[in-house]
């Protein structure tokens, strides 16, 4: 049923019931102007709404009733006949409403019988009293069987209309040539309606009631308390293994969960409620800006918690205004671009997991990247050099920076300095994410992802320094138990603790150190639990002393005296009745040291479960070798950091080797100035791939630094990728690729040759993370923008999503779908059929090259032939530039 009609019915049925009661009161107390005013107002409202909804029959009826009541208000004597007539009219209105509810349209027919009587009574006021007592009595039965209306004369009608001017469309002629509905049929209908109503229970008016928000809030609080009490009971039973309470408590627990869900449901509202005003706003904007704008709304029925709804109402309105003002071009420009003059803003909402995703898309000109660049530089958000290295998406995300506006003119619509930064702040506050996608000439899409509710969250209860804390489960990726000597152990790089987890070094921080509650306690203990957390793109581990269980907690706001502490999101009462603090993952992430901009920059990519390596933030391992000048290597390339006893180092054929994990591992000095120490411990950087390891000999491991890496490729020196500013110091970034062949003869010699290249986008497919990590910065340094995929399936998914890719580089030997099959699949898809593909393999044989040619590989390069790879890339992209 039409939403508007439904609301109308609910509201009108309520009003009518009130009028019923009030009229009766009024009859007893005819001098009470207040009651009369109230009735008059209600009837007037109904009349107005009927007119608006196009319900002429109801409108005519209410109009006549209103006219009569107007007379009362003007001082005409109130007779019981008059009141009866009005009550009868109200019964008729109820009947019409009932039909309307069933048929969703107003029933044909007329109510001249009543209108005429109402008119007559209004005209003669008191006359009706003595003249027609029987008429009044007869019409009182009108609902059951309306009296034939053909008794009414035209004169009477005229008189009635003069006294109470009705709507122009009043079906006056119908009175003269009446088509009275058959009373018998009516009765049957009514009965049928009654039965239908009982059977289907579809009477909206009686199915929904209005409840004050406070009542719901109170209910929610009580349920929250109930959840807490339930948790408390569960906690007690947990301590007593064989408790007879177990069964009933389980039931209580289930009922509580259901109740909680039910109450949450009452707080849910369709997002359309936040959109209601938008069509009007867009209409006004359309006039003001001189643009034709169409607003499409999809998924208005998608429900979310009203508290969340309140939070996003203003941001959404703002963004729609923004789209209308900045997004859509002027009609002339649109025509010139070959687009329809009428611009479209598309608003959509959908559920996705425990979140709701809202998109605001326009088919305008897209974001002006150049203008964003200059605005970003003008506001010192980034240097020109940094911007030159950024991807388009990264640059576009500057629009969320505080105070950012590219609007050249301040219009009354937007561009008043309150911009997307405020929108973003609002969305941040409720733990949401906002992102933008823009295609030049095609339009801009903003997407917002927000949680459905804020009231109850699932949290992991942990202990640090004897105190317990709750960590929202949403941010927790996994738990790792660490013990000295076990597979997972805490490694140390100077004072920074790290965890090697699936070939990635994860920065660690002790919760007690973070919260400064360690006192003199030893943070260097090797035993403990690591809560691996992810906030945006930032992954880190929090070391805690113990991990208990997860619990549904009710977030209670912190006292105003504590709200300034950024590491806490709130507090809660646990099952055992004690109060604990809730950790704010964003606060932790920030204190670990990364900025929100960077977090968001990569957030979207991470959601897709993939890593596009253009976020620019890299963890660098800084060390010294041979000279005091710092050197660095990408931390993700390093498998392990070791310090070995010098005594264990052997020499064979003039090369240093060490027994390492059952293998002989070659040791390669970073440069000729590095000497293996004579005594004590020798620090090593171990690199492993596919079971083979080599180690670089360094003098000292200095630190791990996380920062945007801008490598300047000026180095002619072998083994050096280039230099970068790390912590303000010029640092040589070493090229691991150079050292690998030095360790093993079959790792071919890699040499460097770089030519400036246009920033073409390369999709790199390799199942080995090591090679991905090695090639991504390398290709980046050679001027390509790189997206990596760990499998052929992932690569196909990326291509299917429509991401712009200029060249695909794929490893041939991969588990599952191999490079040849990937190439065939890419060729089969008409959209990607002409995409250049370069095969990468350690097996370069004539037959393999031939097979590659058959499946459509444009080139075939040996895996370690970096020079060849870059040359091949240049060739493919050069072809493309010419073609374009």
């Amino acid at each position: 049923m039409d939403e508007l009609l439904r609301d109308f019915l609910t509201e009108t049925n309520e009003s009518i019931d009130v009028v019923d009661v009030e009229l009766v009161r009024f009859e007893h107390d005819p001098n009470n102007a207040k009651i009369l005013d109230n009735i008059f107002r209600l009837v007037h409202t109904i009349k107005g709404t009927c007119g608006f909804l196009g319900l002429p029959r109801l409108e005519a009826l209410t109009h006549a009733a209103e006219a009569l009541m107007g007379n009362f208000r003007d001082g005409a004597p109130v007779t019981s006949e008059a009141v009866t007539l009005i009550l009868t009219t109200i019964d008729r209105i109820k009947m019409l409403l009932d039909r309307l509810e069933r048929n969703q349209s107003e029933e044909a027919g007329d109510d001249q019988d009543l209108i005429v009587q109402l008119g007559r009574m209004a005209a003669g006021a008191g006359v009706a009293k003595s003249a027609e007592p029987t008429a009044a009595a007869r019409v009182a039965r009108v609902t059951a069987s309306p009296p034939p209306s053909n008794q009414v004369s035209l004169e009477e009608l005229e008189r009635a209309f003069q006294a109470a001017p009705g709507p122009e469309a009043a079906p006056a002629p119908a009175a003269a040539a009446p088509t009275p509905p058959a009373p018998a049929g009516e009765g049957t209908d009514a009965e049928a309606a009654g039965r239908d109503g009982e059977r289907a229970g579809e009477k909206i008016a009686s199915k929904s009631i209005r409840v004050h928000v406070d009542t719901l809030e109170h209910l929610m609080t009580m349920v929250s308390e109930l959840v807490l009490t339930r948790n408390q009971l569960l906690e007690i039973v947990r301590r007593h293994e064989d408790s007879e309470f177990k069964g009933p408590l389980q039931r209580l627990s289930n009922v509580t969960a259901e109740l909680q869900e039910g109450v949450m449901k009452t707080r849910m509202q369709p997002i359309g409620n936040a959109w209601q005003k938008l069509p009007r706003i867009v209409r006004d904007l359309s006039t003001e800006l001189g643009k034709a704008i169409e607003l499409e709304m999809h998924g208005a029925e998608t429900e979310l918690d009203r508290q969340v709804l309140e939070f996003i109402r203003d941001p959404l309105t703002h963004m729609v205004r923004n789209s209308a003002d900045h997004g859509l071009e002027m009609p002339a420009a649109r025509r010139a671009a070959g687009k329809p003059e009428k611009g479209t803003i598309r608003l959509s909402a959908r559920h996705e997991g425990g979140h709701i995703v809202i998109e605001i898309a326009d088919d305008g000109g897209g974001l002006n990247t150049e203008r964003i660049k200059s605005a970003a530089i003008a506001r010192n958000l980034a240097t020109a050099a940094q911007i030159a290295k950024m991807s388009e998406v990264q640059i576009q995300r500057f629009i969320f920076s505080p105070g950012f506006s590219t609007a050249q003119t301040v219009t009354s619509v937007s561009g008043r300095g309150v911009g997307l930064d405020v929108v973003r702040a609002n969305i941040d506050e409720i733990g949401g994410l906002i992102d933008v996608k823009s295609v030049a000439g095609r339009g801009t899409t903003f997407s917002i992802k927000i949680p459905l509710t804020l009231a109850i969250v699932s949290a992991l209860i942990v202990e640090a320094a004897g105190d317990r804390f709750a960590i929202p489960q949403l941010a927790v990726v996994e738990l790792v138990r660490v013990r000295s000597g076990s597979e997972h152990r805490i490694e140390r790089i100077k004072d920074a603790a790290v965890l090697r987890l699936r070939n990635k070094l994860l920065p660690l921080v002790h919760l007690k150190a973070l919260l400064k509650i360690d006192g003199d306690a030893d943070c260097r203990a090797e035993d403990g639990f690591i809560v691996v957390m992810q906030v945006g793109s930032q992954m880190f581990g929090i070391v805690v002393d113990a991990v208990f269980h997860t619990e549904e907690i009710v977030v209670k706001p912190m006292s105003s005296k504590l709200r300034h502490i950024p590491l806490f999101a709130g507090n809660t009462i646990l099952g055992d009745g004690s109060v604990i603090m809730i950790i704010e993952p964003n606060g932790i992430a920030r204190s670990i040291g990364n900025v929100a901009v960077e977090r968001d920059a990569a957030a979207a990519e991470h959601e897709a479960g993939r890593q596009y390596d253009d976020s620019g933030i890299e963890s660098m391992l800084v060390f010294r070798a041979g000279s005091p000048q710092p050197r660095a290597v990408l931390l993700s390339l390093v498998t392990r950091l070791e310090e070995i006893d010098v005594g264990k180092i052997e020499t064979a054929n003039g090369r240093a080797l060490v027994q390492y994990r059952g293998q002989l591992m070659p040791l390669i000095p970073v440069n000729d100035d590095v000497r293996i120490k004579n005594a004590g411990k020798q620090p090593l950087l171990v690199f492993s791939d596919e079971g083979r390891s080599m180690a670089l000999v360094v003098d000292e491991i200095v630190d791990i630094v996380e920062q945007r890496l801008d490598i300047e490729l000026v180095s002619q020196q072998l083994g050096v990728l280039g230099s970068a500013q790390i912590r303000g110091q010029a640092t040589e970034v070493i090229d691991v690729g150079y050292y690998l062949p030095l360790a093993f003869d079959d790792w071919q010699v890699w040499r460097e040759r770089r030519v400036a290249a246009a920033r073409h986008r390369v999709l790199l497919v390799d199942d080995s993370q090591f090679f991905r990590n090695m090639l991504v910065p390398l290709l980046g340094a050679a001027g390509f923008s790189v997206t990596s995929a760990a499998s052929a399936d992932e690569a196909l998914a990326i291509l299917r999503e429509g991401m712009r890719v200029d060249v695909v580089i794929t490893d041939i030997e991969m588990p599952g779908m191999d490079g040849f099959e990937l190439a065939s699949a890419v060729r089969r898809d008409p959209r990607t059929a002409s995409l250049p593909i370069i095969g990468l393999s350690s097996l370069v044989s004539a037959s393999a090259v031939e097979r590659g040619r058959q499946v459509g590989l444009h080139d075939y390069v040996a895996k370690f032939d970096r020079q060849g790879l870059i040359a091949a890339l240049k060739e493919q992209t050069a072809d493309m530039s010419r073609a374009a």
Partner: protein
Amino acid sequence: MIETMTEYVTATVGGQLFGLPIARVQDVFVLDRLTRVPLAAPEIAGVLNLRGRIVTAIDMRRRLGLAPGAVGKRMAIGIEFKGESYGLLIDAIGEVLNLSSGGREGNPVNLEPRLARVSAGVHRLEDRLLVVLDVDRVLDVGGALAEAA
């Protein structure tokens, strides 16, 4: 002048007798299971659960710049301020005194500055001095922080 009578809940902190207008006092309770809050101002002893409400406990000894009191079951006076619940941790609770407003004097010049800062005047009792606590100023913990900073 008509002298009005005010009832005071009295308590001792570090040997000093304090009084709180009874209208400001919600309840008096024994401190149980206090959760400390890391990174909070030093005066904030922690938070606790008082019948389902989360109460912020303020250590009056620290608030007055005294050495922290003995650990253990301590008494607290519950007050409400701007819709939030607070507990003032004290050494001992005393009797309720009914004092005439005429007996209240301004702060003596020799009153210790720390006391003077939270005092709304004094009453001279037979054997000792009662400092009337200005609850709003006691709870101005943030302000005290600002002073320290």
